[in-house]
């Protein structure tokens, strides 16, 4: 018997504290698998945010930092500038990255800092109790938009990948989702490519992952995946927004309502 699927080595063997059906866990696993497969565990450094994924510094078994809210890109900059031959990644939520940490992410991208950002967009501040995030959809009810997010008051949701792709220093930017097996496979390839581009020294790399928060969305885990597919993807089209250097695009970016990706590759193993 051969193991066709087993827990990646880069993840410490301990349970996640995440809620049932929370896709943070899937993304952790993808990142760990990429680290394992690339054989870079020993020289990888993780930077955890403040958010539901704060304890990811424990889950990833590599050396790690817990950064202050939103500042993971600055912390990663400090690390990578001191240790340029290491592989550094941050793992950040949408409150962390798209709100309080806007300045840090924009300038890390502008400077072309050579680390990888795993950006979990779940359209909510999950850890603190389901407040509106910059990425919360119009009309979405949260604890701080009890009447639904209103464009007049709160403006429109921010598309970070599109915005950061405008900057010259960004080398790889993709938006993926983990709501079904095909997309999980694609997400993993994007993560791998981001790490590769980082290691090639081409610049700033980021993978935005549309992710579910059943608890704060008030939905069952399965309904949450469906909601993600039906509501988030149309507003946040999947695809690669920036592909630098001699790398070729993994998949086409197309802003069609289906996210432009679902027709592509079938689920892929590994």
């Amino acid at each position, binding site marked *: *018997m*051969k*193991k*066709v*699927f*087993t*827990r990646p080595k880069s*993840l410490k063997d301990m*349970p*996640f504290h*995440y*809620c*049932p*059906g*929370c*896709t*943070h*866990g*899937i993304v952790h*696993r993808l990142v760990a698998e990429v680290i394992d497969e690339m054989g870079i565990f020993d020289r990888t450094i993780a930077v955890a945010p403040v958010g539901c994924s704060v304890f990811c510094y424990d889950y990833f078994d590599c050396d790690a930092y817990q950064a202050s809210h939103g500042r993971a890109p600055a912390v990663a900059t400090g690390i990578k500038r001191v240790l340029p031959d290491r592989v550094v990644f941050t793992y950040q939520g949408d409150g962390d990255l798209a709100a309080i940490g806007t300045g840090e992410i924009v300038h890390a991208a502008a400077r072309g800092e050579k680390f990888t950002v795993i950006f979990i967009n779940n359209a909510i501040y999950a850890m603190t109790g389901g407040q509106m995030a910059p990425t919360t959809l119009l009309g979405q009810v949260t604890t701080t938009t009890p009447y639904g997010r209103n464009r007049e008051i709160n403006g429109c949701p921010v598309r970070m990948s599109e915005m950061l792709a405008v900057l010259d220093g960004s080398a790889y930017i993709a938006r993926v989702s983990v709501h*079904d*097996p095909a997309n*999980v*496979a694609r997400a993993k390839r994007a993560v791998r490519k981001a790490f590769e581009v980082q290691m090639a020294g081409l610049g700033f790399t980021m993978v935005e992952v549309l992710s579910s928060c*059943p608890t704060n969305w008030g939905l*069952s*885990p*399965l309904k949450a*995946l469906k909601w993600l597919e039906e509501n988030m993807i149309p507003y946040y089209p999947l695809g690669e927004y920036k592909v630098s250097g001699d790398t070729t695009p993994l998949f086409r970016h197309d802003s069609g309502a289906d996210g432009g990706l679902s027709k592509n590759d079938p*689920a892929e*193993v590994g």
Partner: protein
Amino acid sequence: MPRVTFREERCKGCEICKHFCPKGIIEMAGHINVMGFHPATVVDMEKCTGCATCARMCPDIVIEVEKEEKKVG
């Protein structure tokens, strides 16, 4: 026949594996585990193809999948 094993004590009963199993052979157990969830389990291992879709969708890495090694050639 592939083998699919669940670390039952880590299952949070989210039903994601059940939903995505192409063979529809995962069900939630009647009992609850230490965390208070009804854990997932394969009810008809015969039909399992070892595709590992369940494992790849499980947010809590509860599932391990083994398969006979293919003979080369």
